[in-house]
């Protein structure tokens, strides 16, 4: 580290298999309030309601049933919540484990984010961690068919042949599917940001 950053960063470790009662207690049926969960929007939230769902696949193509997904997104107007102000009932932050549905699926009830700025495409920021992952990964989900994707400055930094790994696709009306592949031919793009 440089002279003005003298302290060494604390190393990352795996979240392990037993995070659920600490980080996602309500979703897993433990008697402790969660700070955030998969239900992100309520009746007062403005915007287009969507289900954002998917599966995390390991290198053998098997669904991972002990992953933790955190998502962070702008509201329907493209504004990120701040501690000072936010849309009624919408923080833009959601958390879900993949161990409840039985099939390894994560499923957020949220709203479709707006574009955060004139140059960016609407997207959902994702933090992924799990047993066997020694450091969390960052990725993003963009929305298939969105015209702004062509000009988005982050997508532009991704090799063209891998951009499709960052696209959520509509699997039913109002349902956007985003699968994450840790390895293999369609390995999802993960960012160093």
């Amino acid at each position, binding site marked *: 580290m440089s002279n*003005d*950053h*003298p*302290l*060494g*960063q*604390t*190393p*990352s*470790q*795996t*979240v392990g*298999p*037993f*995070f659920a*009662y*600490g*980080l996602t*207690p309500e979703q*897993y049926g*433990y008697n*402790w*309030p*969660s*700070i*955030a969960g998969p239900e992100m929007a309520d009746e007062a939230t403005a915007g287009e309601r969507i289900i954002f769902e998917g599966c995390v696949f390991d290198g*053998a193509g098997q669904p*991972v049933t*002990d992953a933790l997904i955190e998502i962070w997104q702008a509201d329907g107007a493209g504004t990120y*919540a*701040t*501690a000072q102000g*936010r849309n009624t009932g919408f*923080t*833009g*932050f959601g958390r879900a484990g993949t*161990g409840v549905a039985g099939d390894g699926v994560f499923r957020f009830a949220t709203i479709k984010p707006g574009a*955060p*700025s*004139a140059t*960016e495409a609407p997207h959902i*920021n994702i*933090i992924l961690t799990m*047993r*066997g*992952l*020694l*450091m*969390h*990964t960052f990725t993003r989900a963009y929305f298939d068919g969105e015209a702004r994707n062509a000009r988005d400055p*982050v997508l532009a*930094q*991704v090799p063209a042949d891998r951009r499709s790994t960052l696209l959520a696709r509509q699997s039913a009306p109002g349902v956007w599917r985003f699968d994450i592949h*840790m*390895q293999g031919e369609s390995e*999802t793009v*993960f*960012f*160093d*940001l």
Partner: protein
Amino acid sequence: MVKVLTPRDFGSHPAYIDKNYRSTALRGPTRPLIPIRGISLAAPVYGHDRVSAGDADLTANGRKDGDPQGERIIVTGRVLDDAGRPLANTLVEIWQANAAGRYIHVVDQHPAPIDPNFFGGGRCLTDDQGRYRFVTIKPGAYPWGNHANAWRPNHIHFSVFGHQFGQRLVTQMYFPGDPLLALDPIYLGVPAKSRERMVAQFSIDATKENYALGYVFDIVLRGESATPWENHA
């Protein structure tokens, strides 16, 4: 204006694939991370209002009809950035096994007793000096299936957000002098130069007389560089 973070110091972090930690083989990404520069996002608003004062005392927040079993300890420290600046009002979450080495998680099948008076989850917000403080029970070691006769050292899981999205950290705190550290692939997956940053220090100053031993564990996140960036639009 939002400031850009100092880079993640990959020389201090474990590699994604580690042959001694079996589960990484199919779960760690194999392609290089794609660097994204110039992106700056505040940390998520995660609902500070859901954190209550009692959440930081794990000897009380799972109590049903008595005190939890085991050695009561105090775990405290500061959340700092790599320039040494404290990060105030940031969320610190912990979870851990009980004194017998058993998690309350339904998936944990280790045949050690559940403690009916111990839950094992805690959280708090740092104060204006970046300090956090938990009262808990020293977690026990427990076996796992990574290799023959594999045991995890005593540890407490930590989750920290910081003030920017890119500061996110999930880690584990270990105890000084634990003989299992030299045998643990998860601990040893971190480069030698930075491993000891995950080991708490015993502190007589943090120790409360006639009550509990104190351990200090400071957490250092990426810092904000002096170079400002224009935020989105």
